[in-house]
């Protein structure tokens, strides 16, 4: 460099540069309520937050419960207004606290001391008065290929028997271990200073959907010439949709999944000589967007920091 400031560590890695606008704390997004509650299997909540920023902030999550998985699910932008949906595992409402960081903008902050670094145009790139992001560690993490604790669901049909039009009675035969408590990959991080205020930035990119299929057929009377043939059918699907999420323990980043929605379809049918035909649908169309796979499953960086500095 011809001029300016570089601060490197003992390994020569760049920490502060007059050519790079560092991230600084810009506020805590406002929690507005629960958007979605899903109480089957591991369960989940989708919490909504709002924030105003002319830039695209990086969002950190300070977990409300260290035993639960969290991740930023969606980043909605309208002008300078941001809406974030954050997923959390479990069947109780425990919204986390969010912290937002953006590249420096605006004029000098107040305060008469500290370290101010500017680029060649006089724009601030680092200002100790505006709470620069101090990263504890970065790990690259990817969730397991299959979200359910029971593994990938078989594509063959199960036979749930015939239960007339009581569609709910077909479901038990189609169940699977759709929980997602144990399906995670674990990564250690530099945790020498760990405390309960540790937070992480890790969006949910990967999605997964798995389903079980059911079919039943039997005939009453088909082998008895004195009885009218009566055909009994059932078709059913039970699917669960997952989003990637993370748990931050005192020693590990766990990259796993949150079950957030289920899809269910059942149709029973009896056919014979009229007027004994009957048909009943237990629900609307199945509607699962895809199945038996995960998508967007890539190694993504998890940024770890200590929120103590930004409270």
């Amino acid at each position, binding site marked *: *460099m011809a001029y300016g400031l*570089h*601060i*490197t*560590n*003992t*390994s*020569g*890695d*760049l*920490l*502060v*540069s007059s*050519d*790079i606008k*560092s*991230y600084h704390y810009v506020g805590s997004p406002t929690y507005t309520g629960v958007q979605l509650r899903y109480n089957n299997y591991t369960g989940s909540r*989708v919490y909504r937050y709002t924030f105003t920023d002319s830039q*695209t902030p*990086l969002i950190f999550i300070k977990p409300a419960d260290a035993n639960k998985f969290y991740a930023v*699910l*969606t*980043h*909605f*932008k309208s002008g300078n207004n941001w809406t974030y*949906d954050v997923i959390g595992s479990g069947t109780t409402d425990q919204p986390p606290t969010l912290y937002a960081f953006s*590249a420096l903008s605006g004029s000098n902050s107040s*305060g008469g001391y*500290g*370290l101010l670094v500017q680029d060649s145009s006089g724009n601030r790139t680092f200002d*100790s008065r505006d*709470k*620069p*992001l*101090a*990263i*504890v*560690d*970065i790990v690259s993490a990817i969730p397991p290929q299959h979200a359910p604790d029971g593994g990938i669901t078989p594509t063959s049909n199960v036979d749930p028997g015939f239960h007339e039009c009581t569609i709910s009675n077909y479901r038990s035969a189609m169940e699977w271990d759709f929980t997602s408590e144990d399906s995670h990959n674990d990564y250690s991080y*530099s945790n*020498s*200073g760990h405390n309960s205020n540790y937070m992480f*930035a*890790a*969006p949910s*990119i990967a*999605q997964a959907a798995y389903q079980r299929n059911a079919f039943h057929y039997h005939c009453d009377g088909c082998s008895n010439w004195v009885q009218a043939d009566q055909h009994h059918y059932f078709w059913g699907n039970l699917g669960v*949709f997952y989003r990637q999420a993370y748990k931050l323990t005192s020693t590990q980043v766990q990259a796993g999944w949150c079950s*957030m*929605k289920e899809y269910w379809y059942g149709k029973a049918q009896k056919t014979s000589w009229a007027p004994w035909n009957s048909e009943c649908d237990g629900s609307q169309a199945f509607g699962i*967007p895809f199945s038996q796979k995960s*998508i*967007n499953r*890539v190694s*993504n*960086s*998890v*940024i*770890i920091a200590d929120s103590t*500095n930004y409270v």
Partner: protein
Amino acid sequence: MAYGIQLKNSSGTTFFDSTVIGGNFLGTFTANASNNASFTIPHATLITTIYTQIFMINDLPTDQEALAHTISVSSGVVTATAQGNSSQSQTTQVVIFGK
């Protein structure tokens, strides 16, 4: 500390210590849906390991097969490549870190 830089807040508490900082923000860019984009990292030779984080902007959470861009890094250039068709491809934000 024998050497390095420590920054303290007005209470005297150290919040930035070059001996323990575990990484640094290097830049960010947006790759629009169905379009590729790239970003050149300043002073990439001073970074041992480059990390990227991606998230999608304005994607729906459950109702579509939403695909983020795939990311590659070569010679200090981060490239985001769109995936899928026009209804699947999403706007992707790429955040770059080093340590």
